[in-house]
């Protein structure tokens, strides 16, 4: 099991290969449809927030506020990443992103940006809401909450050994393409 710790250096990311299982510790920033569209259209990150050497997590967490005002993450599984394909490559380049976590994989433009810039796509286990929520230790901050609402806001999450698998690396490798091609060939033989 490979351990990754924030901030994620280019060297540590370039060392990753498709099929590597990793555990991530440190900070993750959630971002889904609204955030991607906003940043792609030229929007700026709020003051004090930087994605440089950071990881974006495609996730709309269920978060509640304790009586003492602390945020608590109740569920935090990945959402389908394909919807961000039109925006992701540009955001990786412009903000210096080193990793994107989600589910279902992404397309060629994201793969190209991963290669150019030194970034990876990390697949979390879809549906494993409880296990993943347990690995989130604290909510450090939340941004753009008013503007986008809770699931779409940028949540700054402190994580400890958050599990994921590298399914697209910075060398042009994509597990999704590999499995699709291999399973197509296997199916062809059996039709």
């Amino acid at each position, binding site marked *: 099991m490979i351990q990754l710790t924030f901030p994620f250096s280019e060297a540590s990311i370039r060392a990753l290969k498709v*099929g590597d299982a990793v555990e991530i510790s440190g900070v993750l920033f959630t971002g889904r449809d609204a955030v991607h569209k906003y940043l792609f259209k030229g929007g700026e990150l709020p003051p004090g927030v930087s994605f440089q050497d950071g990881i974006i997590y495609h996730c709309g967490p269920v978060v509640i506020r304790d009586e003492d005002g602390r945020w608590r993450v109740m569920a935090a599984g990945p959402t389908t990443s394909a919807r961000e394909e039109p925006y992701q490559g540009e955001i990786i380049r412009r903000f210096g992103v080193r990793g994107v976590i989600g*589910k*279902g994989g992404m397309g060629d433009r994201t793969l190209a940006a991963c290669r150019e810039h030194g970034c990876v796509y990390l697949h979390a286990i879809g*549906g*494993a809401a*409880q296990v993943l929520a347990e690995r989130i230790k604290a909510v450090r901050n939340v941004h753009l909450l008013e503007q986008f609402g809770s699931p779409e806001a940028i949540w700054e999450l402190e994580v400890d050994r958050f599990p994921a698998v590298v399914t697209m690396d910075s060398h042009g490798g994509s*597990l999704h393409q590999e*499995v699709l091609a291999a399973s197509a060939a*296997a*199916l062809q033989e059996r039709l």
Partner: protein
Amino acid sequence: MEALQASLIELIRRTSAEIPDDVQRVILASLAQEKQGTIAESALKIIEQNIELARRKSQPICQDTGTILFYVDCPVGFDQIAFADTAREAVRQATRKGYLRQNSVDSLTDKNDGTNVGPGAPTFHFHQHRADEVSVRLMLKGGGCENVGAQYALPLERLQADRDLDGCRKVILDAVHQAQGKGCGPGVLGVCIGGDRATGYEHSKTQLLRKLDDRNPNPVLDELERKVLTTANELGIGPMGFGGRTTLLGVKVGAINRLPASYYVSVSYMCWAFRRHGIVLDPAHGIAGWLY
């Protein structure tokens, strides 16, 4: 109706937090089958941990608590209108308690009023039978896996699928291939051969009410189920589409009549977070027993 409401809230809680035994057994068996040290194995391990954690904490297994589908078997003269009213209230309360996510959106305005109740939500299927017993089954069907469901009209040239059982086999396997890991596999297929478009899909979902370890009473369909399951698990798609030996946990196929002009094969894909439970009501509308 208070007793009924309490029974239905408990049905919802348990369905959302606890995978039925028949499904968990197959997940455990598939975990033992995967090669050690692979990412397929570690994905299944996390799934297994998640199942245990959700049960222990009585929290939703997956944050998408799905489309809410009630299947009710009831005697002649049973008041379906009163039942549906009570069930809608149970859904509202279960949502407030956090057993269900606020998961139902007005298709025209995109508004989510946070109740999970609205046109078509929840959905009810009532069936009368000549017995006094009332039983209620509940399925929570996730969105990601619903998106990879498919309906085929045979013949289909692309797959050289004719209007026969082998044609059915081909299109069902094609659906598995198209889905890859996107439906949060390993999944279970509910399939219907025949019907019109709407009835076909509906019947494919009711196949998911069968226990995974049952055998199809129709030997022809039984053979088809086994064949598709074996072949699908040879495709190497694996849990989450990571590659591996477990692509499907089960296949359930039903057949209903069709018109001479049409031949549909409808496939519903259920994710590993297979949430269905059922209760038999006692005369006072308490829970007399569990069905899965």
